[in-house]
């Protein structure tokens, strides 16, 4: 069981993620309506938000340090924030600004941060091999840093999933594979894409431990991740964790979600893990109502500052497009 301090820190983490995502969502729709135009507004392009998936990011990353490598997906904000990415430079990248992590070259699916050894990829499951390589490097360099690879349940049917898990297992590398099962890959539900109910059972195909967290509970994630991270750090090899989590929003912003029923949408709202967790912490006295309010206020301020920084930062010079092909 995490300490009360840890619980409060996880709560804070989840709150700032939620507010960040909601604020990005607002910015995203600026300039795009009434006739939605994906190319318009201060944040153009695709936008994949992770509201609802905070427990996975907060529960896992609570065990990490900046020298641990984290790779994430097309839906990376929650993980990036939980792993400690600078929110200002992250927001600036999402706004395509020169002050962004990649001087605006990457965008929201391509956040790369040497300070926290964070990377992500818009190609399903293809962030996974990089995590294996980071763990390999750590061993070669005599560090006990580990690598954590986040991916969706849809990614677990990609070849890269299989190759990465086998490679990490054969070489006994310090990798924790974290499957965020939000039941949907865009419009395709897990049952239509995956031959078995739980990807955690696939761990056996690689002789590694597999754990299923059935309920998007940050504490359960924290505990499973704690074991897996410790195993990885002490040279005990990789693990696989699958968390049944929730995608509260569309696959991308603008997704009409015609494939989801009204009941599902209702259920999502009723089982929002962030609110359940907050209520639990308050009910058990870990968090006072005032603490909770303060967490939201602090996050609000932090997010507003970051988005403000992003908004007011300059764009890169157009011809900067030609820079950075080669080092």
């Amino acid at each position: 069981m995490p300490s009360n301090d840890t619980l409060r820190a996880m709560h804070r983490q989840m709150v700032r993620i939620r507010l960040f995502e909601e604020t990005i969502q607002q910015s995203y729709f600026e300039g795009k309506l009434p006739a939605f135009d994906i190319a318009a507004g201060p944040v153009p392009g695709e936008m994949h938000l992770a509201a609802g998936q905070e427990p996975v990011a907060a529960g896992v990353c609570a065990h990490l340090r900046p020298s641990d490598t984290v790779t994430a997906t097309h839906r990376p904000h929650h993980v990036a924030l939980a792993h400690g990415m600078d929110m200002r430079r992250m927001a600036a990248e999402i706004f395509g600004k020169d002050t962004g992590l990649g001087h605006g070259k990457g965008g929201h699916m391509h956040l790369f941060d040497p300070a926290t050894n964070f990377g992500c990829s818009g190609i399903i499951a293809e962030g996974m091999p990089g995590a294996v390589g980071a763990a390999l490097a750590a061993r070669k360099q005599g560090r006990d840093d580990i690598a954590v690879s986040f991916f969706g349940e849809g990614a677990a049917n990609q070849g890269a999933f299989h190759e990465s898990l086998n490679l990490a297992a054969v070489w006994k590398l310090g990798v924790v594979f974290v499957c965020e099962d939000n039941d949907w890959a865009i419009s395709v539900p897990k049952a239509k894409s995956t031959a078995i109910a739980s990807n955690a059972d696939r761990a056996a195909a690689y002789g590694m431990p597999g754990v299923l967290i059935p309920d998007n509970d940050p504490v359960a994630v924290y505990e499973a991740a704690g074991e897996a991270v410790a195993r990885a750090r002490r040279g005990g090899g990789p693990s696989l964790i699958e968390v049944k989590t929730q995608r509260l929003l569309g696959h991308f912003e603008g997704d009409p979600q015609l494939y989801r029923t009204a009941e599902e949408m209702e259920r999502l709202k009723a089982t929002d893990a962030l609110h359940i967790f907050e209520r639990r912490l308050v009910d058990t006295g870990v968090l006072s109502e005032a603490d909770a309010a303060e967490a939201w206020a602090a996050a609000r301020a932090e997010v507003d500052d970051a988005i403000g920084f992003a908004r007011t930062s300059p764009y890169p010079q157009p011809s900067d497009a030609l820079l950075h092909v080669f080092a």
Partner: protein
Amino acid sequence: MTAETKRLLTTSKAISEAIAQEMERDASVFAMGEDIGTYGGIFGATEGLLAKFGPERVMDTPISETGFIGAATGAAIAGMRPIVELMFVDFFGVAMDQIYNHMAKIHYESGGNVKVPVVLTTAIGGGYSDGAQHSQTLYGLFAHLPGMKIVVPSTPYDAKGLMISAIRDDNPVLYMFHKGVMGLGWMTPNPRATGHVPEEPYTIPIGKADVKRPGKDVTIVTLSLMVHRALDAAEDLAREGIDAEVIDLRSVIPLDREAIIESVKKTHRLLVVDEDYRSFGLTGEVITSVIEGAFDHLDVPPARLAYPDVPIPYSRPLEQFCLPNRETIAAAARQLVG
């Protein structure tokens, strides 16, 4: 054109109509890919098909491009005519072995005994800030590899006819639709993405370019969304008294070298416009083909305007700086003529 024939469709609806008509005509045609069922395809190329044909003929797949694109090849060899979608061309690298070592080569390796009639559809193109992994065109890359035909329509009319031709072709055909020519409600409006499309099925020959605007002063060879940009530029040029001929390649393989050469023999000037990366691609091939076929007819060296050799940046000013557009096309043509 009489009123009854003026049936306006977007390109995406023209494509889904073509597929539907072929599925009705031929029971061996079926479609598969990610989100092509309930969702109707992320870019609408299969909209309405699930409701019409049911889940056995319109199959949503797992995210396993090697698996299901390879399965399309296997099914084609076994007598089916699959239409299989790679959601964005940028993802080709997760399934390229199936595409080019299998789908494209088996007919040749078999000495012509095994046919592989697959239509591989895929979305191409940028301009809306989707970054380095979701914005490329890449036909130049596929065109370098023998064994597949490649079509890249720019209009609803061509899109329907080329889709029907692709489905009926006994070879694998890579069918690349630019997101910007689809006429999607959530993209920047593009009037040229809607146009007249006859209801009855018709074909457009694969391998034949089309003169989208005749002209006598300069030949602009291009394809896909850049046809729209080139036509815009030609309007501007016309106002200055420059009469540009705009050739829409429509197919990349086979490449209609004859049509290009014929045009250059008339205009004596060539500009190739391409949204794909500049080097080792389409622009060099078109120019070299003209050097081989009409060197003595050229008044000035041919020019090219293409995406520079850099990955595609996310930020709007960066991406827009890289993309050829109405102004830069007109400027390049002006320079050739002036």
